[in-house]
C-alpha cells in the first residue's frame, strides 16, 4: 500500500461497503468527482453498493441516468476531458457490449491521438461473475476485452481492502480505468484499514505464500484458489496464491518469479477460456518462466459456453476449489 493507513484501526467491512467507503472518501476529497449511472441515487444500485451517497452528496454529485450505457460513458469521456472526474456505473459487465466504442475508440485513444494534450480521467465501474442464476446476458466476465485495449487500465480487486485502495487509486488516475467488481464478492467480509490509503496499480499480491505450485487467480477466483490451497495443504502440497489485482498494468515479474520458484503454475480466471485473460497470463508465465517450469502452465476458466440459467449447468461452467486442487495435484504429482 502506497500510503500508510492514517490509523491502525482495522474495520470488518463487506466488499460492497469497502467500495462505498472509497467512493465516499473520494467524493468528499475532490469536488470534481461525480457518479453517473442507472439507479445509482436513491436506489444505490440494485446491489445497494452506493447506499447513502446521494443523501450525503446530493443529486448533483450522484446522478440517476436514463438506460443509455453508451450515452453516459460518452458523457463521462467529455466531462473527464474538461475538468471533472466521472465515475460511470455500468450495472452489469454484460453491458460493456454497449460502451465499447466510447471506451475503446474514445476514452482509450484520446490521450494518444492528441499527442498527449488531452486526457480522460474516467473511472468506469462495472461487474462480472456468474453463479447468480442470472443467465447468459447477466453473468459474463468480459475483462479480457478491455484489457486488450491500449490506453485503458483494468482493475479486478479480490478483497474488500484491495477494492477500497484500488478504487481510490483508479479515481485519482489521470487515465481511463475500468474497475470490475465480482457480484458474488459484494457480501464477502474482510479486514479494511480505517481511513485514507491507496494501493498502486501493477503490483501483484501474494494472498498465500507456498512452495510447490503457483496459482495465479483473479477476482473471486482468488477465494476459489485459497479454498483449494487449504485442501492441498492437508495433502502436503503447498500452493502459492497470487493475485495480479490489475490486468493492465500487469505485474509480469511478480507472476513469473512465483512460477519460477515453484516450477508449476495454474491460472484461474472467470472469463471464458478461449482468447481470455487466462491466455495472456498463461502465455506471459510460459514465456517468462520457461526454463524454470517443470510442467505446462494450466488454465482454468469459464467454459466456452454462454452461461446457462439452470443451476446444475451453470455450476459446471465456473472453476471450483475441487477443480483447482485436482489440477494442482496433477501438476505436482506429474
Amino acid at each position: 500500500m502506497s500510503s500508510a493507513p492514517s490509523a491502525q484501526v482495522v474495520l470488518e467491512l463487506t466488499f460492497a461497503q469497502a467500495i462505498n467507503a472509497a467512493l465516499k472518501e473520494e467524493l468528499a476529497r475532490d469536488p470534481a468527482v461525480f457518479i453517473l449511472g442507472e439507479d445509482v441515487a436513491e436506489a444505490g444500485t440494485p446491489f445497494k453498493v452506493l447506499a447513502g451517497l446521494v443523501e450525503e452528496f446530493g443529486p448533483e454529485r450522484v446522478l440517476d441516468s436514463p438506460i443509455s450505457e453508451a450515452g453516459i460513458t460518452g458523457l463521462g469521456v467529455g466531462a473527464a476531458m474538461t475538468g471533472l472526474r466521472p465515475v460511470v456505473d455500468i450495472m452489469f459487465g454484460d453491458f460493456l457490449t454497449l460502451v465499447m466504442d466510447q471506451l475503446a475508440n474514445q476514452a482509450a485513444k484520446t490521450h494518444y491521438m492528441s499527442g498527449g494534450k488531452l486526457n480522460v480521467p474516467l473511472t468506469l465501474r462495472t461487474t462480472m461473475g456468474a453463479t447468480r442464476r442470472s443467465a447468459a446476458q447477466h453473468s459474463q466476465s468480459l475483462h479480457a476485452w478491455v484489457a486488450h485495449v491500449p490506453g485503458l487500465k483494468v482493475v479486478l480487486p479480490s478483497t474488500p481492502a484491495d477494492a477500497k485502495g484500488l478504487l481510490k487509486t483508479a479515481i485519482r488516475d489521470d487515465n481511463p480505468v475500468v474497475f470490475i467488481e465480482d457480484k458474488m464478492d459484494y457480501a464477502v467480509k474482510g479486514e479494511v484499514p480505517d481511513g485514507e490509503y491507496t494501493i498502486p496499480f501493477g503490483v501483484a499480491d501474494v494472498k498465500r505464500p507456498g512452495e510447490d505450485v503457483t496459482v495465479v487467480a483473479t477476482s473471486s477466483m482468488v477465494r476459489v484458489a485459497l479454498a483449494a490451497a487449504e485442501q492441498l495443504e492437508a495433502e502436503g502440497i503447498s500452493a502459492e496464491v497470487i493475485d495480479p489485482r490489475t490486468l493492465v498494468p500487469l505485474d509480469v515479474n511478480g507472476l513469473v518469479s512465483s512460477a519460477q520458484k515453484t516450477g508449476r503454475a495454474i491460472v484461474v480466471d472467470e472469463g471464458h477460456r478461449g482468447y481470455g485473460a487466462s491466455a495472456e497470463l498463461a502465455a506471459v508465465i510460459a514465456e517468462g518462466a520457461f526454463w524454470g517450469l517443470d510442467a505446462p502452465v494450466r488454465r482454468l476458466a469459464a467454459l466456452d459456453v454462454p452461461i446457462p440459467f439452470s443451476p446444475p449447468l451453470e455450476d459446471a461452467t465456473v472453476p471450483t476449489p475441487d477443480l483447482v486442487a485436482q489440477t494442482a495435484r496433477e501438476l505436482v504429482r506429474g
Partner: protein
Amino acid sequence: MTATASGTAVGAELALEMYGRMTLIRLFEEQANELYRSAKMPGLTHLYIGEEGVAVGVCSALRRDDWITSTHRGHGHCLAKGAEPGRMFAELLGKEAGYCRGKGGSMHIADHENGNLGANAIVGGSAGIATGAAFSAKRRGADQVAVCFFGEGALGQGLLYEVMNMASLWSLPVIYVCENNLYNEYTHYLEVTAGDILARPRAFGLETREVDGQDVRAVYAATAELVERARAGAGPSFLLANTYRYHGHHVGDVDRSYYRTKEEEQLWRDERDPLALLGSWLEEQRHATGEELRRIEEEARSEIERGLAFALDAPFPDASQVTEDVYV
C-alpha cells in the same frame, strides 16, 4: 388467439378468451412469486401483474405465425402468444422440460412454435431482432407482422432509433409496443425521459397510437388497426400503452417506498385493474355472469396447478448438457 383485424369492436367470444388469458397470466405470476418466496426458484424474476391487458390485447390481434420479441418482464407476452404454463414453469425452474431446456430461464424464454423469438435481458436489445423479422417477412413475401415489446426504459437505448429509421425507410411490418409502467427499475420515467414520447417515433415517420393499457379491448382495437396497416404494406408503427406493475421491479424488490407510494400502488390496483375492468364490462354487457367468470378463473387455476406440478416434478438437465447448443 386468432382475430380478424377488419373490425375493431371486441365481441363476447374474443373478450371472454382475453379474460381467460389475462387470468392465466395473473395466476402464473402469483405462482412465480410464490416459487421465489418459497426458495424453489433459482435467481429472480420480474412479474407482469397489472400489465396483462397489454400483452393480451396486442397478441390477440396477432396470428400464430406473427412474431413477437419480449423483455425481462416477459411471462405475460409468452403466455399471451400461446405458450403452455407447464413448460414455462419448467424453464423458470431450470428444468430440462422447459422451453429452452432450462438454459434460458425466466429472462430468455423463447417459444418458436408460437412465434415468440424470445425474451431479452438487454433493455431494448430486441428492437433489431423484431425489425429484422419484419424485414424477413417482407422480403419473403409473407404477410407476417412482428411486434417488439419493450418497457419505456428502452427509450434510452439508441438502437431503438436506429431501427425505427430503417423500419420507416423500408416500410417494414413491425409494431413497436412501448409498455409505459412509469418506472425504469427504481426511477420514475419522467426523471430520465425528456420531451414527448410519441413525438420520437413520429419524427422517424412512424404511425403512432396511445392507448390505456389497462383496457384490453382498447389495446386490442388499436393493435388490430396497426396490424392491418402493416399487413397492407403501410409500414411500421408505435403503440404507447400506459400501464403499471403492481409488484416490485423484480420479486426481491419489496421495500418500494423510496421510489413510489403505497397509495399510488393501491389506486392502480383498485381502479385500473385490467381484469376487473374487463370483468365488469363483460357483466354489464351481459356477455358473462359472475359465475361464468369464476369458472374461467377456476379453469385457469387448474391449468396453472397442473403446469406447476409438471414443472416441479420434472428433472434438471444433466450437467453434460452444458456444452450442447453452443453451435448448431
